[in-house]
């Protein structure tokens, strides 16, 4: 439980990560300790190379720290096998990427359905839930379009729908608006905010865009692999 009274979804304790780049060792994260509570709408802010993406990857079980602990809903994930991590991601974590990363051979609805397919949700329920969530992100009638037939903003909305459709404990978004123009970016952030308010979806997203930071209710500044400021915004 956090001091704010929120249940802890993700907890990073003394997380350190160093990358080898030839003869050079680059410290991406250094003793990072922070917690994300249920229903938060938090931004990891910082310049390129500050360690935002590395921290998101650690929270999502996509990468392992050199030292420290990461707990997702109380489960220690630094010691999990690849299969256990896959199961954790499948059931508890949603992802949104800067470059949308939709599966090109699937339609918008099928992309949204995909995670539920992996979860073993029956086909009729998958279809129904996928359409409902696509409607909620403003993509009515575009269910059967393939990614190549959608604009960047529409693709990213499909990605958000895909990330939240299976009711994950947390959605991790790595610079979700970086490839969008400011108007489209605002539209996407409004949708994310709406999902956060109405469905209590926990969002953590990385950004270096001041406008995007303005939407976050909690702003975690990262520089040189360290958290140097963590503030709650009004």
């Amino acid at each position, binding site marked *: 439980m956090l001091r704010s009274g929120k249940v802890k979804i993700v907890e990073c304790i003394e997380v350190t990560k160093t990358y080898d780049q030839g003869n050079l060792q680059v410290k991406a994260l250094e003793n990072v300790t922070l917690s994300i509570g249920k229903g938060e709408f938090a931004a990891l802010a910082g310049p390129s190379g500050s360690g935002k993406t590395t921290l998101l990857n650690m929270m999502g079980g996509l990468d392992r720290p050199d030292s420290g602990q990461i707990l997702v809903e109380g489960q220690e994930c630094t010691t999990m096998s690849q299969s256990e991590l896959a199961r954790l991601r499948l059931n508890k974590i949603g*992802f949104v990427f800067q470059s949308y990363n939709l599966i090109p051979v699937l339609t918008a609805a099928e992309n949204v359905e995909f995670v539920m397919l992996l979860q073993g949700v029956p086909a009729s329920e998958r279809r129904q839930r996928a359409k409902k969530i696509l409607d909620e992100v403003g993509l009515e009638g575009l269910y059967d379009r393939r990614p190549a037939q959608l604009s960047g903003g529409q693709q990213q909305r499909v990605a958000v729908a895909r990330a939240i459709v299976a009711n994950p404990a947390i959605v991790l978004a790595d610079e979700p608006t970086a490839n969008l123009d400011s108007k489209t970016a605002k539209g996407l952030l409004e949708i994310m905010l709406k999902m956060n308010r109405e469905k209590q979806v926990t969002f953590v997203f990385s950004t270096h865009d001041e406008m995007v930071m303005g939407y976050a209710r909690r702003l975690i500044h990262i520089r040189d692999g360290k958290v140097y400021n963590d503030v709650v915004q009004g």
Partner: protein
Amino acid sequence: MQYIQLAWRNIWRNPRRTIVILLAVLIGVWSMVFLGALMRGITVGMVKNGIATLTGHLQIHYPGFHDDPSIENRITNVVQLTETLSHVLPDKSRWALRVRVPAVAANARHSAGVTLVGVDPVTEARVSFIGGAIKMGKYLSDEDDHSIVVGEALLKTFNTKLGHKLVLMSQSVDGEMVSRAFRIVGSFRAELMSTEKQYVFVTRRSAQKMLKLRKDITEVSILLPDVNDVHRVREALLNALPNSEYEVLTWTELLPLLTAYLKLYDQFILIWYLVVFVAMAFGIVNTTLMAVLERIREFGLLQVFGMRPFFILGEVLVESFILLIIGIAAGNALALACIFGLGKSGLDLSAFAAGVEFAGMSRIIYPDLQLQDWVMANLVVLVLGLVVSCYPAFKASRYRPVEALAYA
């Protein structure tokens, strides 16, 4: 949307590449099935010729006749033998009693070594090729005492024709050289020219008279209703006949060269399948690997969503499986069409008669698709196709999500 549907769409991401690999599998399967059936047709034709050319499925001789086919090694108790045959042989079996000895045929200008075959015209026609092989003149009848039927090639070699005389000379039972003149009443055509030159047919009675054999014979040729029964029937005959007076040989013992060739063929066809497959395998591995390398980022993404590495491996294998099944189906369809097309007319190799004769092959080859060859060809492609696809599939499943997502 299911995994198979996803695999199907992934296959058609790059239609040109998919069509190329499908063509490779199609041609490979076609060549395995169709050319395999042709090769099998050659061996089946050779066995058929071998059995029809006076061999039969089983032969009974006096012990040692097979190695030394001289008149001394003859069967004397024909009545006992025929009674035993009537009891032991399965229903619908056919057999013919023969006198077969080496002889010299001669006319005014030519002479050559031949095999004199004394036959009962009616029963012989039901056992060997001769009944349906008459091209000119007529076949023998029981009353023909001085008639002879020879091969067309012998007619040509001896520069003679129907109605002319041919003198046969051989050793009689008392060790004397005897000769008798016969009038050529018919000529036969055989699959192999050597058969036409080697065998001359007279009635059994006239052969026995000429060789002073009385009722004795030299061999019995037996055709069984089911060729797979030869060993069982052979055992039954050996049990029923006194071993000191008879030997019973199967067609595989009578035609050792052909038997060795058949064994060689079975090994050859496996090697042939593997050679075709190896060529095909390079295409399969290359294409699948390209498809995997193009989608590294996507495989990372699937893992990010929670797809376990084992299922990613499975997904790539499903794509290979679908490609293989389509290619195999198309290859089989084409091969079956070719086999059906050639089924009635056969492949006529008369233009290469000398060559095919040398190899002991028929002049016309009929493709013969046998179930075990067909199953083997398809299994080789499907199973080994999936095995070689395991490498790219394994590679796809081994990418770590972070590395894969960073892949440009």
